[in-house]
């Protein structure tokens, strides 16, 4: 279908950072850091916080906050893309590669379901978190990650739409069979590749 022309609509000079080639289709750059959450922001004291890798509901391994902080962390600069159409280019994060955590348990599952405080979940193929493109991030822009942005720690999987980067993440459940997470159950795409514009179920 050819798109109809919207009379009188024309390109404006976009906001800073909207360099050609960095924006997936249908996205626009923002300098804000918008928030998309389905419910209230949870608050868990760091003394009670753990991150677990589970299988069949049983923890294979858990890390406390100091244990996570003791692992080798990376600082990464990445572009992030929200399904609600904003992208934020050149964001700086610090966190532990998810691969490091998976390597400490040994794993053979094809899928994971990330789970968070507040009941949020999101599903990912194991290859998308085990190959160095995913982090358990706890600093943003040189500061501890703010609660409304998912602090104390969130997943960072910047090559997928940002709902896959689960806020307030508390662990990964290893799965033999794929299982849709929260937004995936409410009409959003199961995989969420922004470059293929996989926003919604069926895209």
């Amino acid at each position, binding site marked *: *279908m050819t*798109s*109809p*022309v*919207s*009379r*009188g*609509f*024309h*390109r*404006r000079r*976009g*906001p800073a950072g909207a360099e050609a080639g960095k924006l997936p289709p*249908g996205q*626009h750059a*923002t300098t*804000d*850091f*918008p*928030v*998309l*959450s*389905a*419910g*209230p*922001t*949870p608050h868990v004291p760091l003394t009670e916080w753990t991150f677990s890798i589970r299988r069949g509901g049983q923890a294979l391994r858990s890390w406390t906050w100091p244990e996570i902080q003791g692992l080798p962390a990376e600082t990464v600069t990445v572009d992030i893309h929200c399904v*609600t*159409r904003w992208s934020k280019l050149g964001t700086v994060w610090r966190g532990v590669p998810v691969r490091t955590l998976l390597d400490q348990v040994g794993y053979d599952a094809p899928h994971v379901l990330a789970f968070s405080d*507040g*009941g949020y979940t999101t599903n990912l193929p194991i290859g998308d978190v085990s190959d160095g493109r995913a982090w358990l991030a706890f600093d943003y822009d040189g500061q501890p990650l*703010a609660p*409304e*942005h998912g602090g104390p720690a969130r997943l960072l999987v910047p090559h997928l739409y940002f709902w896959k980067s689960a806020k307030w993440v508390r662990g990964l459940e290893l799965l033999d069979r794929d299982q849709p997470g*929260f*937004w995936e*159950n*409410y*009409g959003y795409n199961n995989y969420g590749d922004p470059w293929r514009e996989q926003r*919604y*179920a*069926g*895209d």
Partner: protein
Amino acid sequence: MAGTALRGRLTWRVATVATVADETDHVRTITLDLPDWPGHHAGQHLDVRLTAEDGYSAERSYSIASADGEAVAITVERLDDGEVSPYLTQELRPGDQMEARGPIGNWFTWEPHDGGPLLLIAGGSGVVPLRAILRHHQRTGSNVPARLLYSARSLEDVIYRRELDQYGGSAEVRYTLTRRQPPGWGGFSGRIDDAMLARIAWPASQSPLAFICGPTPFVEAVAELLVARHYPTRRVKTERFGGA
């Protein structure tokens, strides 16, 4: 019906502007002629795509302002440094075309069988999806008690004011004005706080269902107040916009 609308791919449809109506000096409601619209749940949104003569296109998501069964409407707030909202609020006129697809999002929605009592809390243009919920509540003749608490800077900033002023009975609307109140103002003043919620929010013992929509700091603050009032987090649905 909307339950089936998310099966398969959401296709872009040509939408023709039917009416435009200014709500405030920077907010406009646009109704669209959208043939074969599959229906929607109150609270869902849609995507629009504008295409320029040179082929450049821009897409945005907007909450649906209308109830299912009414002409599909969106309400757009102008952001002066934006690319799309100045066009939609200033240039667009009836007969113009764009593309739209939807409905989208099955979480921040309400149907009569979801029950209540309903507590709707809006900050600024966050009232749009909550207005759709109220209209749906009225159109379906629901007897679920509903309250909307709407925080706006001033009376002139209240969107849908004439419509909202007509509610009564099973659906009540209350305003709080944060910056400026007219002489003799009988509503609330200032930001929403616990004392205000003590007068408006259904007690948690009635297992209310809350929907909060507005700018991120507003939603953060109100959601936290409701959790402190023992609302279960799964009964507090939020939608946020803007930077934190």
